[in-house]
């Protein structure tokens, strides 16, 4: 029987050989397929096994996003204490995606950044859950709250952004309507998908960060850019230069003219540049645009950062003055209409550039990144984005913008004891009956610490909304809040 027993032994050997070959095939060849199969919940579990770094503001004193150890299957859950107020900045950490700072600084937060490699190795060996680095934002929580409350109080839609013009550190970023990121951070794919789909289908677009992700016609706030090129074009021009300001400007090749706001007259038809900006007369600036030509307008716009998406911590839509068309179009884009489309962040950079003597600083949100052991891994270093105008022209523009607040359309932005510079905008929003209301400005004018852009979306503040009445008072509160929190 030994012969057949040996053959039976060979059969056993073959069986074990097959099992071993198959286990190797599964564990080495097919492993990636199985690991990445969407029905395999393990990737999903792994997402919650990291002690994700916190997100803070005010130099670490205010917690915006924290990680809670639930000791359950999904061990570390994400919570946003003031979720709605910071939703568009923080974004969310959802089961299958992330957005905002959660995405932008994701590698730091989940500890997968190369700078955290050593730390991860230590955690791996000591069998600790991997720990991410904390991210401190440049936001000023007090001002953020003021901006959020101001915008929310009257049920308005829109965005407020503020930054330090000297560094580019963003101090406020609010977008409304907003959403609660806590509902999207649950470790439950089904619930999150439902919540997301509901938000996504909402026609008010609460998921949209209006400060950076969408462009709107900037209206009269753009006159600052037109004025900048007008002054740059001839150094002898200044605030007191007399300019033609007809009641209606004839547009070449069309039968319609371009009137001032509400068809009003602008002084006596010949006014100073300062007066034209104070009153926000349309005709002089439309005329400048046509005289300067599309190329020069385009060049000046580009110096403020337009034509390319502004480099920023979060995704930004491209702001642009539009393509080269007939002269009539050029006249309209010079006063911020037609195809002229700007993000509120871009208009903030216009104000900030003027505030900073013509130099536009690159905006940023991350102040510093602190490792799990307390060591600073990365710290913001302010960087120039562009040289928008000469220091001389910046000074002239500043003087005129101060006048706008003192005696022009933006008197409601005045702060007692502080000189504020600003410019309002009231832009036709396509066929909608109600206009968009804008305000850009900075304070204190002589040594600016904060630049702001307030944007109120068409229809959310009534048909009579104007930059001066609707946006400027909010801007005042925000400017004041930032200045007071210094």
């Amino acid at each position, binding site marked *: 029987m030994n012969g057949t027993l040996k053959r039976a032994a060979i059969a056993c050997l073959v069986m074990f050989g097959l*099992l071993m070959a198959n286990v190797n095939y599964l564990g080495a060849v097919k492993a990636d397929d199985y690991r990445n199969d969407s029905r395999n919940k393990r990737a999903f579990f792994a997402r919650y096994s990291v002690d994700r770094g916190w997100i803070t503001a005010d130099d670490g004193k205010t917690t915006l996003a924290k990680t809670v150890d639930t000791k359950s299957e999904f061990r570390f859950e994400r919570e946003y204490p003031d979720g709605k107020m910071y939703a568009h900045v923080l974004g969310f950490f959802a089961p299958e995606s992330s957005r905002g700072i959660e995405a932008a600084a994701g590698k730091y937060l989940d500890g997968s950044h190369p700078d955290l490699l050593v730390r991860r190795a230590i955690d791996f060996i000591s069998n600790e859950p991997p720990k991410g680095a904390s991210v401190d934002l440049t936001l000023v929580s007090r001002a953020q709250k003021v901006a959020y409350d101001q915008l929310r109080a009257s049920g308005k839609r829109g965005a407020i952004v503020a930054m330090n013009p000297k560094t580019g550190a963003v101090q406020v970023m609010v977008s409304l309507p907003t959403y609660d990121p806590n509902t999207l951070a649950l470790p439950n794919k089904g619930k999150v998908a439902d919540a997301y789909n509901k938000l996504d289908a909402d026609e008010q677009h609460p998921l949209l960060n209006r400060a950076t992700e969408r462009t709107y016609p900037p209206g009269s706030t753009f006159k600052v850019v037109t004025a900048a090129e007008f002054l740059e074009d001839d150094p002898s021009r200044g605030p007191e230069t007399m300019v033609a300001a007809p009641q209606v400007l004839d547009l070449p090749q069309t039968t319609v003219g371009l009137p001032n706001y509400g068809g009003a007259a602008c002084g006596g038809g010949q006014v100073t540049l300062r007066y034209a900006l104070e009153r926000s007369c349309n005709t002089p600036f439309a005329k400048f645009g046509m005289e300067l030509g599309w190329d020069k307008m385009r060049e000046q716009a580009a110096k403020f950062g337009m034509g390319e998406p502004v480099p920023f911590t979060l995704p930004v839509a491209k702001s642009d003055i539009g393509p080269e068309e007939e002269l009539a179009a050029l006249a309209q884009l010079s006063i911020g209409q037609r195809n002229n489309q700007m993000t509120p962040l871009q208009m903030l950079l216009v104000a900030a550039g003027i505030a900073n003597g013509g130099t536009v600083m690159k905006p940023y949100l991350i102040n510093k990144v602190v490792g799990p052991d307390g060591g600073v891994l990365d710290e913001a270093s302010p960087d120039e984005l562009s040289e928008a105008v000469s220091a001389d022209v910046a000074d002239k523009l500043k003087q005129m913008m101060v006048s706008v607040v003192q005696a022009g359309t933006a008197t409601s932005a005045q702060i007692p004891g502080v000189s504020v510079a600003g410019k309002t905008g009231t832009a036709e929003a396509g066929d909608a009956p109600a206009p968009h209301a804008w305000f850009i400005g900075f304070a204190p004018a002589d040594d600016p610490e904060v630049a702001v852009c307030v944007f109120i979306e068409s229809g959310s503040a009534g048909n009579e909304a104007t930059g001066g009445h609707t946006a400027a008072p909010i801007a005042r509160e925000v400017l004041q809040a930032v200045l007071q929190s210094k």
Partner: protein
Amino acid sequence: MTATPGVEVAPVPMTAKRRGAQLFMLAFAIVIVMGAYASVGLGINGQIPAGMLTYGLGLGGLMLAAYLVLARFAPWADPLLLPLVTLVNGIGLVMIYRIEQTGQGGASATNQLMWTALGVVMFSATLIVLKDHRALQRLTYTLGFVGLGLLVLPLVPFIGKEINGARIWIGIGGFSIQPSEFAKLALVVFFAGYLVAKRDVLALAGRRLLFIDLPRARDLGPVLITWGFSLAVLILQKDLGSSLLLFGTFIVMLYVATQRTSWVLIGVLLFLGGAILAGQIFDHVAARFEVFLNPESPELYDRELGGSYQLMQGLFALGSGGILGTGLGEGHPKEIPLSFSDFIFAATGEELGLTGLMALLMVYALIVERGLRTAIAARDPFSKLLAGGLSFILAWQVFIIVGGVTNLIPLTGLVTPFMSAGGSALLANWILIALLVRMSDAARRPPPQAIQDEGLTQVFQR
């Protein structure tokens, strides 16, 4: 004892007992298991579990007792069998402990340790009571009836219980017992005794077809009867695994006994016939095959009954474990339904990786190899056939369940020997090992040496 005419006695070289080596390897196995316990605790919450000493020392004490019984009652036994089985049993305990920590219902490490203790008692009792395994040969037909009786017991009303769709349990007191595990042992003994008696007849050649000598038609009886019983198990109890296990083992034992390849061919044909027939008649058999061919199909994955969900969860676990595994306590065995019983191999694969699975398969292969070596070294046909049959049924069972879980073959539920939670299987398998140990003791015991070299009267010392 003198050499009986007709039975060849090969000259056996003097074997060493190697008891010291066995004790050392036993200690080594216990150390590995205790290390694994500690690793589970560290993996789950960074602490060495409080139960480590209880479980570790408990298992260590049990195995020491088993060792002492073995050293006393089967001193020449194979030194590897007990340490190898201890290792697999211990790893199984650790995995069940680990799965219990996830809160999956049905996994209880304390119960499993209790059953292991009972298993060791059965092991010891078998060694103590059964001084000579050839005594079993006299019980051939009794055991045959006992085996069949145990097999049909779950079908008896009131006693039988249906769990997870298979009617293979009986309820006694608060316990569920799976009699087929014991039936398996009794039937292998029966097959061995029966085949030794009838092998000369069964080996007679009938008609020659192509290159194969077919057996005589009238000798087909036993094969057909076993086939019929296997089909009955499959049909009445919906137990695909046991059906395949018994039939396959019978065919191999028949082949070993008669040395006729034609029996294997007949067996394979009968199996294919039975499988196709069952596939045609029963949806659950067809479903298994469908799942085997295309487990990843979303439609099968989502199918509530007879779908591929469990299989895929096992494969996901294996894939996620990859080469080195996640480490004990760091995987997600809870995702796999029945991860503590049928799918314990997949759960182990996630945490120990393919490296750990290779080691486990190697240990199983070594146990089988030691058993087959015993069969070859055994001195009488009954022992050869019994040792060969018991070794093969162990290998065959590992192949059926591990192959099923890894989708090498269609999945049929069976217990992973010594690892899966379940008392009946543990007890039966410990008895199986005791029988192998008993036979290896007999096989390795040096033949009687003549102390006097002269004269007609010879005195032997055993």
